[in-house]
């Protein structure tokens, strides 16, 4: 019984959170944000089936996301014109998934013949090609304008029409939960295990009876299926699909989400998609430098904690599994390190904001307010102050890091020494 709660607990908890969220954040903006995050979680998890679980780095996975979106919009419009059989909007994502699967099987056959760097390049090539085609084949993709639809095609069960955003939110939440569960279970199948094996050591797999190419193809196709579901959900949510959705930029965004969240654990992409999309939506309005921060964050993750944010959490798992009190000695060194890190980051942000302000200020912007303090980038004082904070913070980071690391080392050693409690 305990086992069952332990296993089902996270899923039931997740479902409760998904149901409750609209009661906490009820504005239209928040609903759209949460809906987008929901479908991006599906996309990110699908992407991680390639990157984290199959070891395939793709620069073009948005192709399956976007093509499914285009197909969905067309299908909804055709339903409107009564040219195709009616499918309730509730089940439309499945259709999107099948479109993703179709193109995944087709393109995957070619691109999964190679792994590693070559695979990455082929994915980039297909991404560029499809993006270019969206502009050439106007009848299908309608070029830069993209295509539109009205998702309200009829009344479904319980009078749901998917007109109000809240209904779409619950549609996405439902599919998100379903897909997450499905992808989680997939990791525990023979396919999932061999996919991991191909990631770790593709050559060895060939000597235990498996064609690594076939595994990659299968992983690619299944991943495209889920990416297609996400793309269809996107089409239903936004009621518009354009070339942005298939572009390499979109592929890059999902890569950033997954990698910053953490490729090594199942929850990593969920964390990454939630955090990055939230930051992106709230920060783009307040700072021009958002893309720079995103890039720096990504590079920092690769350099300093390749496990991503989820990796930072899971590295403490062996400790709290033994006993949570073992975490106590970590608090102070961690807090000191974190304070130093925040200081240096804030200093750098101040400097970058002032640089941007100087290089691309609008005449109507008369003042720059950083962290609630008015700073004049044309006088020396803020430069000195922010440089001081950044440098001092940097030194403090170097000083406090060793004690944080050694605290973790001690804790993990203690945890190993103790029996499981």
């Amino acid at each position, binding site marked *: 019984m305990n086992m069952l709660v332990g296993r089902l607990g996270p899923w039931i908890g997740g479902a409760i959170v998904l149901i409750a969220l609209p009661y906490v954040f009820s504005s239209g903006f928040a609903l759209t944000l949460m809906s987008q995050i929901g479908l991006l979680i599906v996309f990110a998890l699908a992407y991680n089936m390639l990157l984290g679980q199959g070891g395939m780095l793709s620069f073009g996975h948005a192709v399956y996301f976007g093509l499914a979106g285009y197909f969905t919009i067309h299908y909804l419009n055709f339903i409107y014109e009564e040219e195709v059989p009616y499918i309730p909007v509730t089940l439309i994502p499945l259709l999107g998934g099948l479109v993703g699967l179709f193109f995944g099987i087709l393109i995957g056959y070619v691109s999964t013949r190679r792994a590693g760097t070559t695979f990455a390049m082929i994915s980039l090539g297909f991404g560029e090609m499809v993006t270019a085609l969206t502009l050439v084949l106007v009848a299908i993709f309608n070029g830069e304008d993209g295509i539109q639809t009205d998702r309200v095609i009829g009344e479904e069960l319980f009078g749901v029409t998917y007109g109000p955003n809240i209904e779409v939110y619950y549609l996405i939440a439902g599919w998100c939960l379903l897909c997450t569960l499905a992808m989680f279970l997939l990791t525990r199948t*023979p*396919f999932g295990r061999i996919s*991991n*094996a191909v990631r770790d050591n593709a050559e060895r*797999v*060939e*000597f235990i*009876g498996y*064609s690594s190419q*076939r595994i990659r193809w299968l992983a690619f196709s299944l991943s495209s299926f889920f990416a297609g579901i996400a793309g269809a959900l996107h089409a239903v949510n936004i009621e518009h699909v354009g070339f942005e959705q298939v572009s390499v930029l979109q592929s890059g965004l999902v890569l950033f989400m997954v990698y910053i969240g953490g490729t090594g654990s199942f929850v990593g992409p969920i964390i990454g998609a939630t955090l990055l999309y939230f930051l992106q939506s709230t920060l783009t309005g307040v700072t021009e430098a958002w893309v720079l921060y995103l890039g720096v964050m990504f590079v920092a993750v690769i350099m300093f904690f390749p496990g991503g944010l989820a990796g930072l959490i899971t590295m403490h798992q062996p400790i709290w599994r033994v006993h949570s009190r073992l975490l106590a000695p970590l608090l102070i060194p961690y807090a000191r390190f974190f304070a130093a890190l925040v200081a240096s980051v804030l200093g750098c942000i101040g400097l970058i904001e002032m640089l941007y302000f100087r290089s691309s200020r609008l005449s109507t912007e008369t003042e720059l307010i950083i962290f609630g303090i008015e700073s004049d980038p044309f006088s020396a004082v803020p430069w000195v102050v922010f440089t001081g904070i950044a440098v001092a913070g940097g030194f403090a980071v170097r000083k406090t890091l060793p004690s944080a690391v050694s605290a973790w080392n001690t804790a993990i050693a203690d945890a190993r020494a103790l029996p499981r409690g």
Partner: protein
Amino acid sequence: MNNALTLTGVRKSFGATEIIRGVDMEIRDGERHAIIGPNGAGKSTLYNLISGRFPPSAGGIRLYDTDITNKKAFEINRLGLTRSFQVTNIFARMSVLDNVRCGCLFALGHRYAWWKLVGRLRDLNDRTAVILKDIGLWGKRDLPAGLLSYADQRALELGIAVAGGANVILLDEPTAGMSHSEIEQAVSLIRRISEGKTLVIVEHDMGVVFDLADRISVLVYGEIIATGTPSEIRSSAAVQEAYLGTGAS
């Protein structure tokens, strides 16, 4: 007599250099056959040719009655031939348990299944448990394989290789880099797992070779210069001259 492996006139060149220069060899069904030879003789290359890592430049290879000359590695494996590697070749980020599971999966017929959960596959988990206990890693089954000690990784390497239950087992220096006590354990492990099967082993440690092998082939510069029982090889003049005589270990 029925041969497990038959090599006829096998050659392999990389660019202008010919590494394997016409090897004819027969491995009998059920025997333990050792291949010895100096460094650079082409032993690992020969393994790579047999197991399908590269195709040979010329010649033919048969596994029992099947021609496997130009087959891919996984096809050969499915026909019942498995191998281990000289450099440890495991799935480093996966748990020890999952490493062995992977070795069993195909042979147990689960192939590429994405609709059944490994945790629920009784035949898989039973067999994995047997092998893990056999190679002495049952207690460490939840550790990531990359964190195992060297000797444990070698044992795991063997475990993965034999997990599929293949009839013909090719081992490439399974005791390389081990201490004396570890070698003893390894040899007994090899003896256990090759019970009733055909074993081919490349080995530098002559103690292991003479202890384990029913027959021995000597490979020097891409050619087999002698094949015979341990005592025949020990007394062969040609081998003495080419190999043992020059101060074998």
